């Protein structure tokens, strides 16, 4: 895809029929359904034949019996982002938009992604990845004491795999840590415990067309002070500033970190990195999303809009690229 293909003027021709996958069985089903509806409508406005499908037992038969030109997975959470679904799409032989299974596996597991990106020279807050099983085997009190000694306070506790801030807690006192761990383990068997860095919260979208480039950073200012589930999906509960009000140095560093994350993990097409800019203008990597939200209150559509890009045009262009890539790999 060229940059021109992602503008309003261009209309895709290769991807005439697209299946958008949305819903699924993860905790983020509702968010995914909203993302699917929005992108589906945006593609239809461009004249494409779009079917929004939920993921279920009959999906593979549907894709085999009536294969679309391309699948656009907008499933958030477990199956949609951990690579499993894309692995199966590859088996069926349907071109799909987004990263391949291996890259998804690396990105979806936050501790793994942080390790790889830290190795690439990017700052990321100090962290520990702790399975629930470990607390059972070795005793919770001793481990939590060691965690506090190592990382100090305040902390952020979040599921190692998951999104939409579900199961996330900010821990400001020692007494809050056990409850935060229990809340986290309701969502995942492994907790990521991370030192909380104070600063400006920023999301940077990377669009690879084909070279990865960072779109304008979106600054997040939740009224409640915490960008939790309610702040993310209640229109009006958070103020967004686009582009983020950052120094030119910090803005450039954010773009560089997001592109580094995208490239280091081998991501394709579109990703969103969540970053923090501290008072010294240092940029900290928190996590990267391979199927970022596309809802009415999501961050990527804001970044696309700020870059003068249309949600439908961008996804149509990415679908074209997915089809082209699949054709090339078949011909090799």
């Amino acid at each position, binding site marked *: 895809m060229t940059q021109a293909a992602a503008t309003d003027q261009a209309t895709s021709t290769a991807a005439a029929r697209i299946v958008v996958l949305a819903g699924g069985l993860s*905790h983020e*089903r509702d968010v995914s*359904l909203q993302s699917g509806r929005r992108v589906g409508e945006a593609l239809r406005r461009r004249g494409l034949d779009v079917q929004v499908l939920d993921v279920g037992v009959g999906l593979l038969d549907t894709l085999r019996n009536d294969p679309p030109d391309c699948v656009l997975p907008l499933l958030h959470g477990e199956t949609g982002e951990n690579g499993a679904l894309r692995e199966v799409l590859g088996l069926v032989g349907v071109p799909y938009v987004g990263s391949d299974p291996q890259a998804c596996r690396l990105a979806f597991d936050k501790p793994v992604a942080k390790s790889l990106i830290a190795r690439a020279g990017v700052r990321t807050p100090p962290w520990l990845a702790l399975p629930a099983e470990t607390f059972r085997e070795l005793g*919770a009190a001793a481990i939590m004491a060691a965690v506090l000694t190592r990382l100090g306070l305040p902390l952020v506790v979040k599921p190692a795999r998951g999104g939409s801030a*579900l199961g996330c807690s900010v821990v400001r006192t020692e007494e809050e840590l056990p409850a935060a761990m*229990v809340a986290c383990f309701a969502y995942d068997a492994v907790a990521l415990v991370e030192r909380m860095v104070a600063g400006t919260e920023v999301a940077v979208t990377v669009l690879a067309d084909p070279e990865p480039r960072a779109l304008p950073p979106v600054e997040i200012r939740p009224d409640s002070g915490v960008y939790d589930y309610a702040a993310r*999906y209640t*229109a009006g509960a*958070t103020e*967004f500033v686009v582009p983020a009000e950052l120094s030119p140095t910090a803005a450039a560093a954010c773009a560089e970190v997001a592109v580094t994350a995208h490239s280091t993990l081998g991501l394709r097409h579109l990703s969103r990195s969540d970053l923090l800019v501290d008072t010294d203008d240092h940029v900290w990597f928190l996590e990267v999303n391979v199927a970022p939200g596309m809802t009415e209150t999501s961050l990527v559509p804001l970044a696309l809009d700020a870059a003068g890009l249309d949600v439908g045009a961008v996804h149509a262009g990415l679908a074209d690229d997915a089809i082209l890539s699949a054709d090339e790999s078949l011909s090799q």
Partner: protein
Amino acid sequence: MTADKDPVTGGVMPARGVSRRTRLDSWVDRYATRTHGMTASEIRALFAVASRPEVVSLAGGMPSIDGLPLASVADSVSRLLATRGASALQYGSGQGDPVLREQICTVMALEGIQAHPDDVVVTVGSQQGLDLVTRIFCDPGDTVVCEAPSYVGALGVFRAYESAVVHVEMDDAGLVPEALRHALASAAARRAPVKFVYSVPTYHNPAGVTLTAQRRTEVLDICAEFDVLLVEDNPYGLLGFTGEPMRAMRADESERVVYLGSFSKTFAPGLRVGWVLAPHAVREKLVLAQESATLCPPTMSQAVVSTYLAEHDWCGQIKAFRELYRERRDTMLAALTEHLPAPVRWTRPDGGFYVWVQLPEGLDAQAMLPRAVTARVAYVPGTAFYADGLGSRHLRLSYCYPTPERIREGVRRLAGVIAAEVELRETFGASLPPGAGAQHTYERPGPDQS
């Protein structure tokens, strides 16, 4: 930066090279104060998963309408449209169809109520009946007294009218009269006007218990003593599993009781037909409120209900529903006994749709819900049934909709979820704050039965 607003996002349009600020809601500073609590929630997000067939949902209160004679009902509706379509599709009376109101009186007679059709107002489900009653009685800040726990839909209505809710404890025999007396006396001492007592006395939602006959008299006497209105919400009254229907409170007191009835559980919730039976002066105001809310309740839905009552063996159908729900209740209770460990307690309903479960100390049903959804089972956390955030140790299970096989499987999955949560809490137990799992006095003794 200019002051122009972006017509799409509601944000301030930036000058060239300047950042744009947006809240993605053009009207964010215009909403009423009562709207501010309407936010996205994790719990609602989790319930989106519960609608999938892979999940055994023991959460919703949907009646099982598979047993309805749908082909026969379809014939009746077809004839209705052919012979009376012009009136069935036209506006109707704000108070509701007179023929249907007569039929409603026949239905209520099964619970001992002698009523005149003039005192019945047809509503869009009994939910709208409660909305209208609250609208005509409650100013912001007025107090409504209700059971602990109470129907979640009622709490939503009270919140919308900015009413203050005072919960009163229940036990296995329903609302505790002395606790009601104490609550009304306390409110009187505070000069807090209690506009009405809201109660689901029969096959309570969510608790599953029923107010005994003796207590019904006591509760009515206490309402008289404090000169307070009683709103009796009775959607499940005809769905008892033993003997004759329980006598409604309205049957023994016509001037102080506003009665809410519904066809949602005995016929079809999709038609949205319920009613209010109220004293004359209250009824007049309800009709005016109904006219301003909807002009008239849906005429077609009323015609379908009226035709169903006239042409079908609706009493026989209710008996069939009772048998179906009794089998499912028995299945759920047996599965709970088989799978859940001793510290877990639950009620044993004699009718209706729900079992109220108390978890072991320290467990939080809302915090446990993500784990349950992962295990493909859903329930409603107890906090939904309290206006003040209490009830965290409880959950509501519904047996009305899933088949017996699904009920057994759902309870089996729930047992695994509870066991894992107990293990986790034990791991962190000594470190958790001492207040976790503590209960308010009106959560004890609670309606739980062992």
